[in-house]
């Protein structure tokens, strides 16, 4: 319903309030924009905000490709930033010149998917590895071997995320490979790892991870760090691994679509979210980490002290990339063979 209405509303407000500084249309994941933050932003700037939501990266791509969306801000995952920039779907914002840019943590400035932050600014980020119930297995969990070649205690009690790309990328880190392999022999090694692991896997399911770990239905589970934190909240024996081989990272970013009608307001909003107290509101709502170190003091205590949200120094975070057609076909083939 919202999706149907946003277009006409955007068009209408364009004609009636073309010169009023009033509007900002945001397109974000469901339940990912804190309402109190928007209220605060509206009060402080006098800009009128409208939010529309989506549930998959492909939706955003399809909508932006279709042209007339009327959105001024989109939140997109890092693997899609360069794809959308190449396709001309998002515009240059030269974030490094925006007020507040200096607040960003140095390591998130000029990321691989967006050199010099020409198109995007970090919003929230997370990690994907695995959790273990230390009551069941109390050995070292600092290696992906525990997940892919589980010790006896964990055999038959492993849960995996049911997503070919996520399972394959973690297996590739385990094997020390780059993502998006187009080398068939390398992908056969990935297939072997996943096939050897399969007899020990109890369930492949991306939903319900928190609940399965809290209820001891699984003793080890591939998991996102936000969920790992929430599972520990329910069962304090749940511990997240930061494997020595590396860990998968993802970043959601603020960007401005090419067809934005209020680009100045969009830049105002981006600057606003680089202020520590504002981006902290997002983390407190979404339960993920942000890229502004100064925001820590505004975080809920539960988040500030969570070991899951802060990767220890020396952990190699490998950020997701969008694979091309050939690599994606091979991922699909591996997954099909593992589950045939």
């Amino acid at each position, binding site marked *: 319903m919202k999706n149907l209405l946003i277009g006409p509303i955007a068009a209408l407000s364009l004609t009636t309030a073309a010169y009023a500084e009033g509007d900002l249309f945001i397109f974000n994941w469901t339940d990912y924009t804190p309402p109190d933050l928007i209220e605060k932003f509206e009060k402080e700037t006098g800009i009128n905000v409208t939010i529309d939501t989506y549930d*998959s990266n*492909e939706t955003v*791509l*399809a909508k932006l490709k279709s042209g007339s969306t009327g959105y001024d801000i989109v939140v997109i995952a890092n693997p899609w930033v360069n*794809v959308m920039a190449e396709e001309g779907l998002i515009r240059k914002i030269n974030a490094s010149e925006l007020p507040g840019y200096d607040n960003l943590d140095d390591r998130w400035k000029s990321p691989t998917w967006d050199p010099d932050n020409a198109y995007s600014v970090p919003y929230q980020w997370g990690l994907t590895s695995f959790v273990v119930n230390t009551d069941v297995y109390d050995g070292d969990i600092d290696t992906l071997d525990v997940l892919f070649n589980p010790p006896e205690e964990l055999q038959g009690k492993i849960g995996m995320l*049911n*997503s*070919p*790309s996520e399972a394959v990328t973690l297996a590739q880190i385990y094997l020390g490979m780059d993502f998006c392999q187009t080398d*068939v022999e390398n992908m056969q090694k990935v297939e072997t790892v996943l096939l050897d692991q*399969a007899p020990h*896997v*109890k*369930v*492949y*399911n991306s939903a319900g991870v928190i609940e399965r770990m809290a*209820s*001891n*239905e699984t003793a080890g589970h591939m998991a996102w760090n936000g969920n790992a934190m929430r599972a520990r909240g329910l069962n304090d024996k749940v511990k997240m691994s930061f494997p020595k081989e590396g860990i998968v990272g993802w970043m959601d970013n603020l960007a401005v679509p090419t067809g934005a009608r209020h680009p100045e307001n969009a830049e105002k909003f981006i600057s606003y979210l680089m202020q520590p107290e504002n981006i902290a509101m997002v983390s407190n709502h979404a339960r993920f980490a942000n890229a502004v170190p100064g925001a820590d003091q505004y975080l809920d205590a539960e988040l500030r002290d969570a070991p899951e949200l802060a990767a220890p120094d020396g952990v190699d975070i490998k950020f997701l990339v969008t694979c*091309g*057609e050939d690599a*994606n*076909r091979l*991922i*699909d*083939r591996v*997954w*099909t*063979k593992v*589950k*045939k």
Partner: protein
Amino acid sequence: MALAEPFTAKDKVAASAKRRNLIPFLGLPAVAVIVCFMVGPMLIALSFSFLTAGVYGGVDLPFTIEAYRQFLFERNLDDSLSFDNSYLVIYGRTILLAGLTVVISIVIGLPTAWYMATRTPKVRERLVLLVTIPFWTSLLVRTYCWVLILRDQGLANGLLREIGLITEPLPLLYSYGSILFGLVYSFLPFMILPIYAALEKVDFRLIEAAYDLYASRAAIFLKVVLPLAKPGVIAGSMLVFAPSVGSFLAPDLLGGGKKLMIGSLIQMQFTTSRNWSFGAACAMLLMAVVLTVLVFAVRQSKKERHA
């Protein structure tokens, strides 16, 4: 009894010429619905299956049969093709599970329907209501409830442990058995209701007559009851087979997503695999399977009627 009604109905129609002229148009809404919501989408899917998959989802020109080729052959680096049985295995497994679902549903559904049909009309009404009650709740919610009941820490294992029958939890979930259970649970009402509808119309004097002619109980069941129930069994089988073969809730939730079924395979092609044309081709091939079964079933029932 069957002769009297059509005559009166015909007379009424003849009495109003105006109304008769309208009759051909009464079918229009049905035709419109079928064209818009069934034929249209099917044609779109059919054309997608012959197009080239877009890099980030969607489809592009040119037309190709690549998607159908992918079903049987995988393309090697040097562009040569080698036979790959993965998809045949997935289809075979799914069809087998759907077939077993039909058989089990008949075994449970036939006696249930017989019991229902032999009650007094008032009780019958209530029983039909009972059979339809599960439909009032979303299938997703009901399937998830079975996860909660069957899992290691679930109700079933808890109960068995409580009364001392087991010490270690039984692995009730995440197997072919639990998928089959889920499919039978989901679609059993589609078997019971058509068989009940067929049996409800049975003239029970036929069975009395069989008794009078010294037929054994087995002979009565095989030669009288079963033939009378057959149209219901065939309709029920079709209604159970079609959704079972395309289901992905039971395989993913109760089966633990360990093995791909046709439904989850197709869903995967339209999402993470970004291969819409292959997804559409899989859907077309699934439809071909269902249609073949349907044609076979219809022929079978026609043969029966003529015999």
